[in-house]
């Protein structure tokens, strides 16, 4: 079907490989790439290493979990963005279109406000994202309309702004010396606190959601046609839309619970992936996952090395994403109406 996907996939893999190489080696404690390689091969083979324990500690305990978390979060946001852009037939859609991010944000700031601990905050954020999208979907489906997609998007926008008001209220009420900085930091997005214990709760939902989307890859192609056309082609669009939204929301909520709000990645990287391999979801979903993982890994490495203090991820992605988005708007006008 059309051109070969191999060159595009290769580029995505190279971005990810470059991300791995940079993320492990640069930082306050520079490490030689050969040391990283020898440690990882030794660990895989089960043999002892000759590296100083400090180096081993940095690779396995400090950078390793953060690298994996960055890759998973980047992959999750990009896969979710890819799915939503296809489902809503709109290339300007991002993973938070149905309120997943605002729901997760409200859950997290409530957790911080009531001091429920790190695990509690993450659980509340995850649940907040799922509940917000379920509510948007339930409200949107009860409104009769010719265009169910448009009603869903509008419901997502209004519910999202209501949840944003909730976040604003908690910030207003929060203790300005302890809680408010924590809330602000969380809302800007960061992987600085990611440890080994974060990986399982992140990996599970991301893997499940991504596998569901991969399994539905051909139907997702058909779902990018107008609703009546997809139905006439034999697709039960109602149940399928719920499955796609649920899978995309699962991966979005899990990544927001781990890393806070990171904008732009889920909006911008799907376009790069589509430019590399075309719109067929069978190749787009894996390419988007690899490219998004590599992209966020590079951004996160920049975030922790560019300045004396960590730069919040949300700020970095916005600084890089805004010019890209403007370019996108200018170029999309030619191919998309």
């Amino acid at each position, binding site marked *: 079907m059309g051109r070969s996907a191999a060159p595009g996939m290769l580029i995505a893999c190279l971005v990810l490989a470059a991300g791995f190489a940079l993320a492990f080696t640069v930082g306050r404690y520079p490490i030689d790439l050969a040391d990283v390689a020898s440690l990882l091969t030794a660990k895989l083979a089960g043999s002892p290493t000759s590296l100083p324990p400090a180096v081993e500690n940095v690779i396995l305990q400090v950078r390793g979990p953060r690298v994996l978390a960055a890759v998973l979060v980047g992959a999750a946001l990009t896969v979710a963005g890819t799915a939503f852009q*296809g489902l809503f037939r709109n290339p300007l859609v991002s993973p938070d279109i149905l309120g997943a991010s605002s729901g997760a944000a409200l859950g997290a700031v409530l957790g911080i406000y009531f001091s429920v601990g790190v695990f509690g905050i993450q659980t509340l954020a995850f649940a907040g994202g799922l509940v917000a999208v379920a509510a948007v979907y339930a409200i949107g489906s009860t409104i009769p309309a010719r265009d169910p997609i448009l009603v869903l998007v509008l419901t997502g926008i209004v519910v999202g702004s209501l949840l944003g008001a909730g976040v604003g209220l908690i910030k207003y009420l929060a203790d300005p010396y302890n809680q408010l900085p924590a809330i602000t930091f969380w809302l800007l997005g960061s992987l600085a606190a990611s440890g080994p214990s974060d990986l399982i709760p992140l990996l599970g939902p991301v893997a499940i959601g991504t596998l569901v989307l991969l399994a539905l890859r051909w139907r997702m*192609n058909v779902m*990018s046609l107008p609703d009546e056309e997809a139905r006439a082609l034999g697709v039960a669009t109602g149940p399928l839309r719920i499955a796609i939204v649920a899978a995309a929301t699962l991966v979005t909520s899990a990544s927001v619970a781990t890393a806070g709000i990171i904008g732009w990645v889920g909006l911008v990287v799907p376009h790069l992936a*589509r430019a590399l391999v075309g*719109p067929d979801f*069978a190749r787009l979903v894996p390419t988007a996952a690899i490219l998004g993982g590599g992209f966020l890994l590079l951004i996160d490495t920049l975030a922790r090395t560019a300045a004396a203090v960590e730069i919040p991820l949300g700020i970095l992605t916005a600084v890089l994403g805004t010019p890209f988005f403007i370019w996108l708007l200018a170029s999309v006008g030619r191919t998309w109406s």
Partner: protein
Amino acid sequence: MKLEGRAVTIGYRDRVVGSKLNVALATGEVLALLGPNGSGKTTLLKTLLGLIAPLDGEIHLDGRKLDAYSARERARMIAYVPQSHAPTFAFPVESIVLMGRTAHGNLFSRPNEHDRAAATAALERLGIAHLAARPYTMISGGERQLVLLARALAQDPRFVVLDEPTASLDFGNQGKIMDEIVRLAESGHGVLFTTHDPNHALRAADRAYLLRDGTRIADGPISATLTRDNLEAIYRAPVRVLVDAKDGTNAFLPG
């Protein structure tokens, strides 16, 4: 085999478009649906496709109620050719045609070699095999209409329903679509199309169904239904009849 609306009331939750309409389409025949803007053509067409539920009455397909069919079963019986539109994503033409094979696979399957062969055959039948690798977003409106017709052929249905298939096409492409409609009926398909041009019904249809304000004005063979009186009645405008001096063929002109 028949696709039949029995005393169907068509419309939307808040608006009745037409009441107690009877319409039937058999395999091997072409039925043209004519009526002015807002007469209920598209609503009737979408009701027969099962895309809009009738407010009253029943749609029957091959003796079974249409709403008893699953979306997949229905798609293997009836194909829909919508008016061509600019799509969001630049799928290659071959992928668009392959989407017609969706109902022949299961929820998780991708098109197989058999599906690819069906898509290629459909493209070749319409003489557009050279477009296969082109992005669907980059071809002309006439080519898109042919691609959507190829998708309907790849779907391998018994009935093909087309919504204004000649709208926005140039004169040559209009003729091409009319030819294909006739050939579809010759190969045993039942074809229903809507049109704003009675001449297209004259050219391609066996029967015409005339609608005005959701009411049937006439339904029957072309010679009996496409008359000056009937056309003036549905369009509420004067109509002239031209007759070819050589073979006596009719054509209509508005005004």
